[in-house]
């Protein structure tokens, strides 16, 4: 992971994005500009339909950038090739609204399968790392359970383990608590935050779950395709003094 604090891991400027063609063309993102620093936990909030997911899919290299400049983890996404986008995605840990686990695998296998993307990790090492990761998310006892035998919160914890086990340079999460009740949602978010802090992984998380806003270093808000406001999150040095936040949240990183 890059440790150069001055170097943002995501920078974007002048991003416009539309769905549809001709008459049906509908612009979703308007002149979006953003920068996210290494190790930062950034929450992206805003009303439903405002374009948060669309922005996330652009950053993840899941959609083609139409206009503007967007650099993620050293990949310039303007006219990036499919192969380049695939390389980028392998550096990202994904957490979805639904757990999106493979139902025919056990918890451990779901995590382990990620090492098929990292051929240099031996089978043994992959197994050990997957096991440790599951213990860290509190599922050490249920590693060999099939997904169908886990509760919603447990499934999402497996998904977190799967997203983090490959040591991604960035974690992208889209409403990871939306399908969970308040308590398990809270647990999942706390877990994600503490693991990310431990591993010093930056997180960009879309959520409109107001109960979890406190984990953020920084909160940015989207309104009708515009990034409208950014505020310092309540998760600051006094909440997690020991976890070693590498870089102080900086409002100036998001240019409105």
């Amino acid at each position: 992971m890059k440790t150069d604090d001055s170097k943002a891991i995501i920078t974007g400027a002048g991003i416009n994005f539309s769905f549809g063609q001709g008459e049906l063309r509908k612009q979703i993102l308007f002149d979006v500009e953003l920068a996210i620093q290494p190790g930062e936990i950034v929450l992206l909030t805003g009303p439903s339909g405002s374009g948060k997911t669309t922005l996330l899919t652009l950053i993840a290299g899941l959609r083609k950038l139409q206009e503007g400049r967007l650099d993620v983890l050293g990949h310039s996404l303007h006219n990036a090739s499919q192969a380049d986008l695939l390389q980028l995605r392998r550096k990202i840990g994904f957490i979805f609204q639904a757990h999106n686990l493979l139902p025919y695998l056990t918890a451990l296998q779901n995590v382990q399968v990620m090492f098929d993307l990292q051929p240099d990790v031996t089978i043994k090492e992959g197994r050990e790392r997957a096991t440790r990761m599951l213990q860290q998310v509190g599922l050490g006892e249920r590693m060999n359970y099939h997904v169908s035998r886990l509760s919603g919160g447990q499934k999402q914890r497996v998904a977190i383990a799967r997203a983090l086990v490959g040591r991604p340079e960035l974690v992208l999460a889209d409403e990871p608590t939306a399908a969970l009740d308040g308590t398990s949602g809270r647990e999942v978010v706390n877990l994600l935050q503490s693991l990310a802090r431990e591993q010093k992984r930056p997180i960009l998380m879309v959520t409109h779950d107001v109960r979890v806003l406190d984990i953020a270093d920084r909160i940015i808000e989207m309104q009708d395709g515009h990034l409208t406001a950014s505020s310092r999150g309540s998760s600051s040095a006094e909440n997690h003094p020991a976890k070693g936040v590498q870089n102080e949240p900086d409002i100036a990183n998001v240019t409105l």
Partner: protein
Amino acid sequence: MSQRIPLAWLQLKHEKMKLFAAVAGVMVSVVLMWMQLGLMKALFASAVVFHGSMNGELVIVHSQYEHLLHSKVFSSRLLYRLRGSPDVSDVFSIYLAPGEWKNPWNGEMRSIQCYGIETDNASLKLPGIEQHLLQLRNTDVFLYDRMARPRFGDVVGAVERREPVELELNRRRMSLAGVVDLGASFGVDGNVLVSHANFLRLFPERKSGEIDVGVVKLMPGISVVSAQKQFQKVLGKEVQVLTVEQFKELELIYWRSATPIGIIFTAGTVVGFFIGFIVVYQILYTDVTNHLPQYATMKAMGFSDGYLYQLVLGQSVQLATMGFIPGSLIAAAMYAGLRKVTQLPLYMEPMRGVFLIFATILMCTFSGMLAVRKLRSADPADVF
């Protein structure tokens, strides 16, 4: 990319009913292909058992001879011309005609193929025939085809049990001198071998010396092809001089064109192939469709298209293997059963097995490749 976790297999195994249906589909297809190809081969092979048993290299038949059931006689005097040749070791003549066999148990009349052969020397290379040649010289005795269809009655069993049975051929009381293996075929349900003299007794309308088939045994080291050319010149246009292979081929050409057997069994094999193809395609296609969100998720996480293709194609190869093995076992059992009932030479020939392994893998891979196209519609942008 190496697969550390047997994803293809785990995914197949996850839905047992679907796996069972797919394997059953492949199995049915494999059994069908074995049966069709085996029957085709056996039916054609059974039609030329007699031809293959010629104790000689060249065969002489009338120029209008087409096949065993459509023969035309020629004078055996023609063959005498060959006896003097230093290239010739022996010449045999054979009469043939369909006779009427009376089933001793139910009295039913059945057509049976009768051959009049020489009894001094074996003109046919059939196992065990020599020990019976002397007996064949007696009046009104015959050799019976052990592999004849059961409709003629359990003649062999009765003789073995020493039961007295009244055997009647062309309304003549006959007695059994022994058995040989010839086998039934398309137009022939069974065979009977008799001496020339007995043949002429059975078929009084036939003239002595008007034979159907001449067999020429060459001296060792004589070129078959040049002898064939030379004899054809000597004998003239009334007869055709054939190698044993050509004699067989003539028979096969007739049955291939006269019967739709080649077409039916080839079509049957193709149908078998397509049954497997369609079942596997259907199952893999619905499987890919049902799992699209999972595949989209995997694409989003950085798994390449190649990885996912490998996953689906891996499943098709696994289905091929799982269907091929039990399918072949079933086919082997059916071969054995049919061999017993129909006396057809049905065997699990290794070459056919190799061919079918490839056909099965091809079938499953084809369907896998078609089903895999559906993977394109797994859009990783849809996963959030």
